[in-house]
């Protein structure tokens, strides 16, 4: 991966260190909507432990969170709320779209759902499944960590 601007030794090391720090303690904001929220909670619980990634603190306040896992189906009424919560999160922030309904509207291709949360917020990782099991969600989270560490996603 070639950096866009020439960087010195110190800056690349600093950037790597910053990326490392960002992935090691990424706090999710609670945005559980429907069934996927239950699997998200299961991922955070003791059996499939998210605390080993530093992520067990699901912050209720978006001001204290860096990751928003949109877990569940997004209805038309809820969409402005989603956007507002996303706006309230400080930079750098990432979004994981968890589940089929969040990614594309899932099996509910109808009037009531937004067909994919990427209509409302920019999404970094899509985790398919209905609902995705804890292993799938963790794979998605770790993929996001890898992308940040490698510099693929720049914030």
């Amino acid at each position, binding site marked *: 991966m070639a950096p866009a601007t020439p960087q010195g030794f110190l800056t690349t090391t600093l950037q790597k260190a910053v990326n490392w720090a960002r992935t090691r303690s990424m706090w999710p904001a609670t945005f559980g909507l429907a069934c996927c929220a239950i699997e998200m909670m299961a991922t955070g619980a003791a059996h499939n432990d998210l605390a080993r990634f530093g992520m067990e603190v699901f912050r209720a306040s978006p001001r204290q969170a860096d990751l928003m896992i949109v877990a569940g189906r997004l209805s*038309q*009424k809820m969409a402005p709320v989603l956007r507002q919560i996303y706006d309230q999160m400080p930079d750098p922030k990432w979004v994981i779209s968890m589940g089929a309904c969040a990614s594309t*509207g899932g099996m509910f*291709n*109808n*009037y*009531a759902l937004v*067909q994919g949360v990427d209509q409302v917020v920019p999404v970094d990782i899509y985790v398919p499944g209905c609902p995705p099991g804890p292993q799938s969600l963790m794979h998605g989270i770790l993929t996001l960590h890898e992308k940040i560490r490698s510099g693929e996603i720049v914030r």
Partner: protein
Amino acid sequence: MSDAAFDTATPAGALLGGLAEHFPGAGFTTSLGDPVVRLSREDLAAFVAAARDAGLDTFIDLCAVDYLSRPEGRFEVVVHLLSMEARLRLRIQAAVPGDDPRVPSLTAVFPGANFYEREAYDLFGIRFDGHPDLTRLLLPDDWEGHPLRKDHPMGSVPVQFKAIEGMP
């Protein structure tokens, strides 16, 4: 169905028989073993109040159905009541014409009918006269249309499959 068809020895039969006496215009039938009564919409509130006083005091459900073209009326409001003591469920149906979809509200009889009537208004456009707060419940306040009507489209978006450039 005449009153003689009710087995007044059982509490359920006695309850229904009593109601049938007070409302001679009501049509009592059974559907797959469940007692059903068909009313005109004007009698709905009075009948439900009488049913509550007779023992059907648990409000279970209120919903609407859109039959599109039906001689007695396009919509139907269906109320389900339950009597725990008599172990009786009663389905009450009232036809509502499509050009004048108004029904008296049941919130004075059962406060629990509040949200159900708002939902029926929201999804079907049936107005409940006397409802204290008839506004949309499930859809955003500025939504236009009543989605569960049969002439309202599903609202699906076409799913696009785009070929990836450069791949065979």
